[in-house]
């Protein structure tokens, strides 16, 4: 009885603000609603519209492209940093704090700062490039460069944070395993691929699952830096949903699109679960 009292408030919040809205989004996807009037039942019309909406599938593609740019870069950099810091060294703690500083930055503010840094005439990036004789492009108005620039904001923000998890994973690997390997004359390369990486899987699993879920929901930096442009080259699915609901007032259709995003995340997360389950012992208890 006491237990239910303790979880009561969280449970009420959970039901009202998570479970009801999740059921609600499926219901709402069967309605046409302009955010102010009464929702009108339209059956599967929103789903039929989705099938023929090229812009929605472009947004899906852009989202996948963003995740594919962001996650590998961030994970590899974080792993390199973690390997570098995984030893007794002077200043190790200071470096750790400095690397985590970007994590808490407001994405809206970062969007402003990156727009400035990548400004073709007054930005730091093109100035630095000009010092080595490269004429930098007009980054944010280029359909080729806009998305990589946006991805770089996220890489900057989360590499240090990801590094902390991987470093903890590295430190949990028992020293004896490395000692035994040294006795057997295992090379440094073999040691990394045969010992370190496999034993790092639980941390890698956690980091990839949470970062991928987060990356699929890119919104803030797009909103501030490009508003989905140039053209639709940075319109992610999350941004497209926002446009449909709050600029075009197609809230029912936006609900349908939200279900698509949900399904994408579920699929990718389930895929990661299956991949890692075969190869890792991860204790979920």
């Amino acid at each position, binding site marked *: 009885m006491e237990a239910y009292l303790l*979880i009561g408030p969280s449970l009420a*919040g959970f039901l*009202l603000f998570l479970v009801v809205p999740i059921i*609600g989004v499926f219901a709402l996807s069967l309605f046409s609603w302009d955010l102010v009037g009464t929702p009108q039942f339209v059956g599967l019309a929103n789903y039929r519209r989705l099938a023929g909406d090229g812009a929605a599938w472009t947004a899906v593609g852009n989202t996948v492209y963003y995740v594919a740019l962001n996650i590998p870069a961030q994970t590899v950099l974080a792993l390199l940093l973690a390997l570098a810091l995984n030893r007794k060294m002077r200043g190790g*703690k200071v470096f750790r704090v400095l690397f985590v500083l970007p994590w*808490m930055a407001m994405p809206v503010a*970062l969007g402003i700062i990156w727009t400035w*840094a990548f400004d073709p005439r007054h930005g730091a990036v093109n100035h630095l490039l000009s010092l080595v004789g490269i004429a930098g492009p007009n980054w944010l108005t280029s359909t080729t460069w806009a998305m990589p620039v946006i991805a770089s904001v996220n890489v900057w923000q989360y590499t240090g944070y990801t590094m*902390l998890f991987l470093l903890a994973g590295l430190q949990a690997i028992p020293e004896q395993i490395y000692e035994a390997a040294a006795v057997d004359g295992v090379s440094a390369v073999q040691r990394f691929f045969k010992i370190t990486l496999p034993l790092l899987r639980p941390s890698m699993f956690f980091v990839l699952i949470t970062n991928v879920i987060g990356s699929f929901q890119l919104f803030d930096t797009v909103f501030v830096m490009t508003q989905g442009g140039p053209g639709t080259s940075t319109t992610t699915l999350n941004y497209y949903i926002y446009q449909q609901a709050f600029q075009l007032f197609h809230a029912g259709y936006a609900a349908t699109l939200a279900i698509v995003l949900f399904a994408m995340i579920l699929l990718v997360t389930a895929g990661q679960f299956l991949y890692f389950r075969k190869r890792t012992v991860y204790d979920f208890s």
Partner: protein
Amino acid sequence: MTGTAVRRTLLYAALLVGALISVAPYLMTLNASFKTTQGMFSTQAWTPAHPATFSNFASLWSQYDMSGFMVHTLIVSVAITVGQVLFCSLSAYAFARMEFPGRDLLFWAFVATMMVPQIVTLVPLFLIMSHFQLTDTYRALILPYVFGTPYGIFLVRQYFRTIPPDLEAAARIDGAGTWTILWRIILPLSRPILATLATVTFVNSWNNLLWPLMATSSERTTVITVGISALQGQYASQLNIVLTAAAVALLPLIAVFLVFQRHIVRSIALTGLK
């Protein structure tokens, strides 16, 4: 130099470059907030503002309700943070230490919703809030997050499970009830994780854009993210002013972080391990 010395030097050089990249955007933004519009275009981002001017702050505060934005955001963030720490601790304790029907099912239901993207719940949430005429109020911003999030409950529960149960057993023999045990034993032992949860929650609330953008529309509830993105459109040609606003939005969090950094660096790592 020997081989190890060379390697050491290279290692430090690489780490220093990384550290520089981590802090440079902050420093350049702070620097830019003391420059004039002219200075912005005639000097490089890393050239110190000379002479330093405070006029950006003055014009920001005279044309925008910057203090208002910050106070609104502070009210919402503090309310959510206090609620999170309290309610997550209560349910985490029940999930970590008590036996009750449906415990595991409920816990995994909570955890599973971490996969649900924010936007999925926000569109129906907007419908709920407008039905109860709560849009454009603090309540609309606070209510969805104040009762604890799955992430918070998960984080605190994992930590509670590392506390030896013997401590509680001894207290129970002395006649202490659940509330006493929670208040006198568990919570004092859990300060690092509670500090972490508080910081993470405060940072997320302070930085949150999407829900306030949807749920609020008037000056009296404008939070700092919404305020700054509106201001960015208007001042496109006066980068020094926009960057000053960015600096103002970033600095409070750095202060919070530096106070709690020891706890955070340690406990962020803990959650990843299990």
